[in-house]
């Protein structure tokens, strides 16, 4: 087979972007269209093409060096974008979640106006996420991050008549704007300290201790070899951590998450808490593993030890997210806080690193695997909430009483999601959590391991409340379920099947993740 041009590596992002443009075009031709099947169809096709191409590239060996039998790693636009295995892995997560979300939205938005805008915004945001997966410089990362964020502010406030949703959107926007400013300032400080924005250039600057510049696409020391001001670099890194914490809804920038997830339409909550979180993490993994190598940072001294920062953040995020979730009375809000807790689990990916910087690729691959499993089980859970909202079931735990009698298939799927989220071996969540557990023990991070175990035990308590309500409690009030929306059902059941299949199939996921993390 002839070698494809290297820009084809971006096919997943292109497919998503093209779909969003087609949607915008159709909207300008026929404004206020309510032809939901066509709109949702374009979106589903776009995301499935993205998914298929990303999976195809992974299997085909794109992103693996030719010396190891792969197809080589496409490096585009002078090193601004790089399509390696990690980029493709996260493109798979984003595309899968997007496909599920737009499929489910087919029923959810069919009663609302501005449908074309809804789907176009989702696809635009997904495009940003795929670009973020491949971003190889702080500049592209920032632009991609804004492409992710701006549509999501509007999406959170999509239900214009819902005051809670509008308020959540505004809050999300304000906190997002502040954190973008913090991130941009951090980027400028890193640039000032190292002279480059490309991740490999920053790494060279840190390891050599001299400010670098880029000449004809290759990194060189600046003339006169000025030294890197480590204290400025340290402040810059700290601010980048802040920006990442916002996007991944980690403590201490998690306050927006419960509001936004609760106020947003439920499919969007699933989209934000799964795909958007994954996009935030791919940025974090790449920046900290490639641009700020911990071994070199410690060797030079002076600059910040970000592993300790992430250890504190991980433990705090796990505990705050899970304890807050345990005290909630509304199911959606409980899931929102549990999503904060899961961000804490994934942060272990950057925290389970030994003092000499070993174990990073192992822990990152554990975090990646958890994000992939989480993409299905968490999106599925939020889509079940969407289904409940569609039926007019209330928001509290009691309102779910006896739902299992009326909708056994959907409730069985929800049971799979919840137990998998809790880490019982009924879904892939058990293995990904175990993988994280192993990563912590691998470097002897006992406090992280203990936090993981304690929080998993606690999480079972509040997840099982939903299961108990659905199956064990008797229905309290009058409720009649008269329709079974096809799109939502397909998405929920599909996500449940994948969550379950990740039990026997987890090996493939973890192997690809490990290889991707090693190739960084």
């Amino acid at each position, binding site marked *: 087979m002839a070698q494809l041009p290297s820009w084809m590596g971006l096919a997943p992002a292109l497919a998503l972007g093209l779909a969003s443009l087609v949607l915008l075009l159709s909207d300008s031709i026929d404004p206020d269209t309510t032809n939901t099947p066509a709109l949702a169809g374009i979106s589903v096709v776009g995301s499935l093409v993205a998914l298929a191409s990303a999976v195809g590239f992974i299997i085909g060996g794109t992103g693996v060096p030719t010396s190891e039998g792969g197809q080589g790693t496409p490096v585009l636009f002078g090193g601004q974008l790089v399509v390696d295995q990690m980029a493709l892995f996260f493109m798979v997560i984003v595309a899968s979640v997007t496909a599920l979300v737009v499929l489910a939205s087919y029923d959810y938005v069919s009663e609302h106006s501005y449908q074309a805008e809804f789907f176009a915004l989702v696809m635009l945001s997904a495009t940003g996420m795929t670009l973020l997966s491949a971003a190889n410089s702080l500049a592209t990362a920032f632009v991609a991050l804004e492409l992710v964020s701006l549509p999501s502010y509007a999406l959170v406030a999509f239900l214009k008549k819902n005051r809670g949703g509008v308020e959540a959107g505004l809050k999300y926007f304000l906190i997002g704007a502040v954190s973008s400013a913090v991130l941009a300032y951090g980027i400028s400080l890193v640039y000032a300290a190292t002279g480059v924005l490309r991740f490999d250039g920053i790494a060279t600057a840190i390891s050599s201790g001299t400010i670098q510049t880029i000449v004809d696409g290759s990194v060189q020391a600046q003339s006169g070899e000025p030294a890197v001001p480590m204290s400025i670099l340290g402040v810059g890194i700290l601010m980048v951590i802040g920006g990442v914490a916002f996007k991944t809804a980690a403590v201490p920038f998690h306050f927006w998450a419960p509001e936004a997830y609760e106020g947003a339409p439920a499919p969007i909550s699933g989209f934000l808490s799964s795909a958007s979180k994954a996009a935030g993490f791919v940025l974090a993994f790449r920046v900290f593993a490639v641009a700020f190598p911990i071994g070199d940072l410690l060797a030079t001294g002076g600059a910040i030890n970000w592993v300790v920062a992430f250890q504190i953040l991980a433990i705090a995020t796990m505990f705050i997210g899970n304890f807050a979730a345990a005290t909630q009375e509304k199911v959606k809000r409980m899931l929102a806080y549990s999503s904060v807790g899961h961000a804490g689990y994934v942060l272990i990916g950057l925290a389970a690193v030994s003092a000499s910087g070993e174990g990073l690729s192992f822990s990152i691959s554990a975090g990646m695997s958890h994000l992939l499993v989480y993409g299905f089980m968490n999106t599925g859970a939020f889509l079940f909430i969407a289904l409940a909202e569609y039926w007019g079931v209330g928001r509290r735990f009691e309102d779910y009483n006896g739902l299992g009698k009326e909708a056994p298939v959907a409730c069985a799927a929800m049971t799979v999601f919840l137990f998998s989220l809790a880490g019982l071996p*009924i879904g892939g969540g058990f293995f990904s959590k175990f993988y994280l557990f192993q990563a912590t023990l691998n470097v002897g991070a006992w406090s992280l391991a203990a936090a993981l175990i304690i929080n998993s035990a606690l999480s*079972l308590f509040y997840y099982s409340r939903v299961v108990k309500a659905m199956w064990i409690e008797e229905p309290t009030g009058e409720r009649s379920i008269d329709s079974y929306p096809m799109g939502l059902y397909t998405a929920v059941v599909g996500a449940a099947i994948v969550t379950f299949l990740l039990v026997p199939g987890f090996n493939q996921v973890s192997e690809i993740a490990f290889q991707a993390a090693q190739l960084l």
Partner: protein
Amino acid sequence: MWVAALIAITLLGAGVVFLAPNRYAGKLAAGISAVPALISVYMYWVYLTQYGGTGNALLSPGDIAFSQQIPWISLGGLEVSYYVGLDGVSMPLLALTTILTTLALVSAWTPIDERQSQFYGLMLLMEVSLIGVFSALDFFLWFVFWEGVLIPMYLLIGVWGGPRRKYAAIKFFVYTNVASLVMFAGLFALVFATDLTSLALPAMAEAFRNASGLPTVAGINLMTLSFVMMFFGFAVKVPVFPLHTWLPDAHVEAPTPVSVMLAGVLLKMGTYALLRFNFTMLADTARQLAVPLAIVGVVSVIYGAMLALAQRDLKRIVAYSSISSMGYVILGLVAFTPHGMGGATFQMISHGLISGLMFMSVGVIYNTTHTRMVGDMSGLADRMPWTVGIFVAAAFGYMGLPLMSGFAAEYLVFLGSFDAATLGGAAPVLTALAMFGIVVVAGYLLWAMQRTLFGPFAIETDYDVGPAAFHDVAPLAVLLLLVIALGVAPDLSYDMIQHSISPVLDLGGGA
């Protein structure tokens, strides 16, 4: 292949039953579950005639019967595989599981009258996990099945249970899940301390046996710490005093067929895991801790029996006496003698059959009279002669009547523990104390039977009391025949148990 077939057929059957209409679900489920039951009986026969001399699945992996191994997951240097196989300990337990499930499903026809397809589907799902627990030889696979038992059980108690079912279901769930986490943490502390590359149980057994230079945590050797954590985890399941409080609640609230599975098979998961992990993998530590463990066992025997004496609810009586019976298993295991360990394993099978029979009989009486309280009824023998006859026979089996399996099991346990080297001078005392438990058992069972079954007929409820239906009594008769068969010819399973126990004893041990 055989084990995979058992799992696949049962799993497929569960799916079919979930989709079946409520009216046919019970008959369909019983019919489907007869297939794995027959297959496992055939496997048992093959094992009995062809594998007579195989060793222990953990200690001589070359000899495992029906074994199959397929690589599954590799997690950063830890190889996990689909690895199943049977030996003389797990084969009888597997047969017990499949046979008892079929009988329990039949016994459910009368009491379960709502959401039948979900009930029977969950029962079959639970059977899948139970088959897996007794046949898995890879820790990860085993743990998946171990936890997999929990979810169907939780729902079975919570949905179809009695008035306090929600409380009982949550209590069961929380107790056993916390226990699992403690056990998991304890085991993995050892796994990472010994640099294992495979989670196959034989490999773990070998690595733990040869482990040296283990770190100490807070002055305690890691091996001892892990042993205690794992013992705690499994002891909740057994259950052992003082971790038993979930059991009476779960039993009383659970519907009869679920109680049968709970007492008959689920409790054996705990003792089976103790035998496999604590007493085979960590045999040296178990020998060192034998005396305190034996005391725990004996206290369970006496305490369970005393509590049973104080109950009025027939189901509670049987539930508490199960705690007592499981105490004998602990006592037999710590003895580390051929008859002690063998008897303990035999007691698992025997108690599975007898307690299942007792719960089923109580269930049949309850279905007819709608009360289980001693004192609310008397003279049932006139009205339901077959049920009462079997109930009396079962009770005598429980008391240890010769020629029934309970006698053989308890006799062997006492024989083994009486001169156990591990217990030293305490052995005769502990054994004598445990024997006293049998006297108490005889006391409360005779008392309860005399008040409810004999004398002039009287009942406090308005229900019409007549003979039970054929399909209610038939499972009782089958179980009674099995109890008598094992009592008359214990070698049907005691022989293969001995073959698989002796490698554990041959480990020697430093103590």
